[in-house]
C-alpha cells in the first residue's frame, strides 16, 4: 500500500464523464458519469443487463468508449490499454471469477506484482543478493494481503480449488497487490452466504478506512449496498436514472419502477434494504 501521506488529495480519485459506447446499433451505455472519492464506497446498481459491467470495462480499458472520458486524479485514462490503466492505479475484480488456474493462491497474488518486478528477471533468475531481499519483501506483502482477506491457511492451494467465496476474496487480495488507488468490485458478494457477506462488508470497509482507497462496487444484494455505500448510482438500459445516498435511492420512484419492471422482486429489496 502507498502510505496515505504520499497520496494526492484531490476531490475525486476516479472520474468518468459522459461515457458512451455502442455495439453496432445498440447503445450499451449512454452518457454515463460518476465520481469515486478517496476513502468512500460508491455503489453502482441496476437490473440485469443495465450495463453495469460494461461501465467497469470502459473504465478499466477492456472496451474503448465512443465518447466521454475517464480520469484518475489528473491522469487521463480514456482509451488507454487495460494494463496501462492498471499501472496507473485502478484495480478490479470480475463478476465471473478470473483467477489464474495454473497457479497457487500465493502465486496468484505474487503474479499481480509482475509489473513492479520489471527489469529484474535476469537478476532474480540468478538469485543476485540485491534482488533476494526485494523478493522477500514482495512475498511478505503478498502474505500480508492474504492474511488481510483471511486466506493465510490456503497459500499453497490451487487457486481454483478454493470454495467460491474464498476465490472472490483472493481476487480482492490479488487486485490490492497492484497498489491501486481505486478498487472496482464486480458483484463481490455473489454466491456468498450471509456470514461471508458480513465478513466481506467489513473487508471492503477496511480497504477504504485502513488503506484509504476509493471503492466502486456493483452488487445485487441491496442490504449489502445500502449499508456500505455513501453514494449510489442507478443504471437502467445503459442510462443513469438516479444518483444519491441510500435513503434517497430507496425512495426514488424511477428506481422502484426500474426494478418492478424487471419483475424479480428486487424492488421490495430496494425499498426494504436498510431496515433488515
Amino acid at each position, binding site marked *: 500500500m502507498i502510505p496515505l501521506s504520499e497520496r494526492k488529495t484531490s476531490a475525486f480519485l476516479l472520474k468518468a464523464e459522459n461515457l458512451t459506447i455502442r455495439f453496432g446499433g445498440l447503445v450499451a451505455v449512454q452518457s454515463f458519469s460518476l465520481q469515486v472519492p478517496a476513502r468512500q464506497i460508491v455503489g453502482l446498481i441496476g437490473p440485469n443487463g443495465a450495463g453495469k459491467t460494461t461501465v467497469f470495462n470502459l473504465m478499466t480499458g477492456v472496451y474503448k468508449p465512443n465518447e466521454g472520458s475517464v480520469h484518475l486524479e489528473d491522469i487521463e485514462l480514456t482509451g488507454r*490499454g487495460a494494463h496501462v490503466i492498471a499501472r496507473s492505479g485502478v484495480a478490479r475484480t470480475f463478476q465471473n471469477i478470473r483467477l489464474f*488456474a495454473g497457479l497457487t493462491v500465493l502465486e496468484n497474488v505474487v503474479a499481480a506484482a509482475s*509489473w*513492479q518486478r520489471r527489469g529484474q528477471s535476469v537478476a*532474480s533468475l540468478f538469485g543476485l543478493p540485491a534482488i533476494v531481499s526485494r523478493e522477500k519483501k514482495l512475498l511478505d506483502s503478498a502474505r500480508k494481503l492474504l492474511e488481510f482477506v483471511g486466506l493465510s491457511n490456503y497459500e499453497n492451494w*490451487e487457486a481454483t*480449488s478454493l470454495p467460491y467465496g474464498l476465490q472472490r476474496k483472493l481476487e480482492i487480495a490479488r487486485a490490492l497487490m497492484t497498489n491501486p488507488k481505486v478498487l472496482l468490485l464486480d458483484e463481490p458478494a455473489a454466491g456468498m452466504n450471509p456470514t461471508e457477506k458480513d465478513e466481506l462488508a467489513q473487508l471492503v470497509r477496511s480497504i477504504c478506512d485502513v488503506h484509504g482507497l476509493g471503492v466502486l462496487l456493483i452488487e445485487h444484494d441491496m442490504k449489502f449496498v445500502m449499508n456500505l455505500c455513501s453514494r449510489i448510482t442507478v443504471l437502467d438500459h445503459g442510462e443513469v436514472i438516479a444518483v444519491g445516498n441510500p435513503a434517497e435511492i430507496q425512495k426514488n420512484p424511477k428506481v422502484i419502477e426500474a426494478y418492478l419492471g424487471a419483475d424479480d422482486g428486487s424492488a421490495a429489496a430496494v425499498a426494504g434494504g436498510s431496515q433488515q
Partner: protein
Amino acid sequence: MMEQLLEYSILPLILFGITAIQALGLQLILGGAGLLSLGHAAFYAVGGYSAAAFSVYAGPALGLNDPTLLMLLSLVVGALSALAAGFLVAVPCLRLQGDYLAMATLGFAEILGTALKNIDAVGGTRGFTGIPKLSSLPWVFVVLALVWWALARFRRTGLGMAIQATRDDEIAARSLGISTYSAKLSAFVIGSAIAGIAGALYVHALQFISPDEADFSRSVIIVLAVVIGGMTSLFGSVLGALILVAVPEVLRFAPDAIREQRMIYFALIVIVVMLFSPKGLQSLIMRLIPKSSPQRGGSQ
C-alpha cells in the same frame, strides 16, 4: 561387448539430450505461454546453421583456436540467431487474435527449408558438412541441466509469473498491469533461443546438418514430446523427449514392416496418454509418488 554397447548408446543419448533441450524451449512457449508453435524445428535449424557457419567461417577468420571458447561462442550465436528469427516471426503474429502464430511458424519453417536448400555456402540440399567436432555428450548434458535449472527458476521471476498469468487469463493479467503482448513475445523468443542452443550443440556433435532438420515433421516430434510428457511440467518435457528418442531405438531391433511406422506408434502413445492422464505422463508418475504437501490440490 560392454564397450560396444556404450559406443552405440552415445548417439541416441546425444539425440535425447538435444530433443530434451528443444522440448524444454517449446514447453515455455506451449505450456508456459499457451502459444502453439509448429515451426520449433525451424528455429532449431536457424541456430544450428548459424552456429555452424560461425565456427566454419567466422571462427578461423577471427583466429579462434580454443575449441571450448569456440563452442561457447557458437552457443551464443545459435541462441541469438534463433531469438532474432523468433522475434521477426512473432512480432506481427502476436498482435492478432487466434492461431495465426501456428500458421506463421509453419510457413516460416517451409520458407527456411527451401531457402537453406538453395544456399551453396551452407551445402544446399546436400547439407552442411565439415563442421568441427566441438561438442560431445558431456556438453549436451551440461547444457541440458543448465537450461532445465534456468527455466525452473525463471518461473518464479516477474516475467515468468507474467507469462503464466497471461496463459491462464489474458483479461485478468491485463487488469493487473501485465502487458500480455510482451509476455507472449518474451516467452516465444526465449523458447526459440533455447531451440537455437540445441541446434548449436547438434551441429558440433554430429558435424553435419541438413535442411531436413527444419522440416515440419521434426517440429511435430517436439510438440509430441511436450504433450506426451505433460505441457505444464519441465520434467514432463524431458520425459517426453526420452520416450520419443527411445521408441525408434527400441524398434531398431524389430522387423522392417513394424519399424517404419513410428509415427503411428507416437500417435498411439499420444491417444493412450491423453485418455488416461490428460496432464501427461509426468502427472501419472507424480500420482504414484506420495504427496509431499497434502493441502495442495483439492481438485483431483
